[in-house]
C-alpha cells in the first residue's frame, strides 16, 4: 500500500492532542467538557452552546468501518503520484457511534475493506509524522 505524505497543517493547536494520542497508540476525540457527550470533529463553537468548552476523551481503539474508498489518483495539492494507491476508511469507534475518524486502511489484502468491517486502531508512520490507521480487528 502507498502512504500519502501530507503532514497535518496545524493552523492552530486544536488537533494536537489527537496526534499525541496516536503516537501512544490511543484514540482521543473531543467531547463536551460538561456533559461528556462526544462532539466530533471539534467545532470552533459547540453548536447551540457558544460558551461551552470541549475536552479530550479517550475513545475505544476498536470500531467499525462506516465507508471507504481506494484512492488511485491522489487529489492532494502537490505531486503524490508515488504515494498511491491507498485505501481510506471512515471509522466509528465502538463507544463513539456516529463519530467518524478518517484513517488509512492497513491490511495485507486491502480489497478486504468493507462497510461494517470491524477494525482496530493501527497508527501509521507517514514520513516523519504519524497518522491514523486502522487494521482488521
Amino acid at each position, binding site marked *: 500500500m502507498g502512504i500519502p505524505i*501530507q503532514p497535518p497543517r496545524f493552523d492552530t493547536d486544536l488537533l494536537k492532542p489527537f496526534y499525541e494520542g496516536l503516537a501512544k497508540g490511543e484514540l482521543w476525540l473531543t467531547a463536551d467538557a460538561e456533559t461528556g457527550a462526544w462532539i466530533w470533529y471539534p*467545532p470552533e463553537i459547540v453548536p447551540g452552546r457558544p460558551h461551552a468548552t470541549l475536552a479530550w476523551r479517550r475513545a475505544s481503539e476498536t470500531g467499525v468501518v462506516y465507508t471507504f474508498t481506494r484512492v488511485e489518483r491522489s*487529489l492532494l495539492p502537490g505531486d503524490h503520484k508515488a504515494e498511491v494507491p491507498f485505501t*481510506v476508511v471512515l471509522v466509528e469507534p465502538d463507544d463513539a457511534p456516529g463519530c467518524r475518524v478518517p484513517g488509512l486502511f492497513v491490511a495485507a489484502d486491502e480489497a478486504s475493506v468493507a462497510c461494517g468491517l470491524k477494525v482496530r486502531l493501527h497508527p501509521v508512520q507517514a514520513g516523519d509524522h504519524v497518522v491514523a490507521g486502522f487494521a482488521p480487528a
Partner: protein
Amino acid sequence: MQPGRVAITGVGETPMVRASKQSLLEMTVEASLAAIADAGLRPQDIDGFVVNRNSHSADELGFAMGIERRPFSAITDTVGGTGPTGSALTLAQLAIEAGLCRHVLVPYGFQATRPGGPYGFHSREPLKADLEMPVGFFGQATYFAAMANRYAHEYGLSEEQLAAVSITFRKWATLTPGAQKREPMDLDAYRASPMISTPFRVADCCLMTDAGAAYVVSRADAAADAPHPRVLVQGLGLGTTGYPQSIMFTQPASIFDYPGRESAAQAFAMAGVGAKDLDLAQIYDGFSISALVQTEQLGLCDEGQGGRFYAEGHAMPGGRMPVNTSGGHMSGGYLPGITLLIEGVRQLRGQRGEAQVPDAKLCAVTGLGGNSHATTILARS
C-alpha cells in the same frame, strides 16, 4: 412566491472548454451579453443582478456592460449548483414580485483551471487539513466515492448500474453540439476510463471546464413580447442540512442524504404538480452517485432504485423520463447548475434539435452545493 410570475427570457453561454484563454470576467460578460440579446433586450434594460459570491460583483459586471442604473442587486449565499439555480431564481423572483425591477441578470463564470483548481477551497478548511488530508481523504471525487460505497452497502449498486448514469449522460452529449465529451461511451469504454477513487472512474466525475453562462429573469407580463416562447418559473424549493462544509462529507448521519426531498417537496407544492407530471429533468451531476441519489429524491424512482432506473434506460433518449439532455456536467461541461437550467429552458422552447424531447412542457432542474439543494420547476408558457 407564486407560480408563473417570472419567466426566463434569455440564456447564453461561452464555449465549454478545458482551459480558456479568456479571463473569467470576459467569459462572464460575453455570456451575459448573449443572454440579454437572446431575451431581445439591451444591456440598459437590465435593472437587477443576482451574482454568485465566488464570482464578480454587480459593480464590476455592470461597468463592463455599460449598465449604470441598478436598483436591485444581490449575492447568493449558497454554493455549487444551488447558487446559480434555485437560490438566484428565488432572489430574482422576490425582487420582481416586490416591484424593484423587471429584468434580472444572473451571470456566472467558472474556471476549473484557476490556481488551486476545484479542490482549493477544501484545502483551506483547518479540520480537513489536520484530520483528512494527512490520510489522503481529500477532493470531491474521493468524498463522493466514499458516499457511493456507503450507498452500495445500504441499497446495493452494481458497476453496470453506476456506469449507466455516465453512459446515459454521454449519450445525450453525443446529440449536443458544444458538449465537451461527445465520443460515444459504452460499458467497455466506461471500464477503460482511469480509476480515480473506487468506485469512481474519470467517467463518473464532472468535467473540468472554463466558461461563462448567464440567464435573464423577467416579470412574466414584461416577457410577453420576448422573441422566444416564455419559460415560466412554476416552482422553487431550497433544502439545507445543518452540516457546514468542514464536516458534511464525514459526520452527517447519512453522508449521501442531500436535502433533495425537502427542496423537491417545496418546488412541487408551489407548482401544484408532482414528479409524475414532468416530461424531463436536469439533475446536478457533480458525480454519478450524486445524480443517482437526487434522481430518487426528485421522485423519478423509489429510494434505492436509482441504479435500476438508469440501467433500464428510462433517462436515455426515447426513455420515459429523459435526464440531463445536454450531457449534464459529466459530459456536457461543468458550470455548476446554470448550464442545466439553460438546457431546461432550451428544451421547453423546442430548440434542441436532435436532442429535443418531443412536446416538452414541464422540466425539473436540481442543484446541489455544499449542504444545500435546490429544485426548480420550469414550464413552457
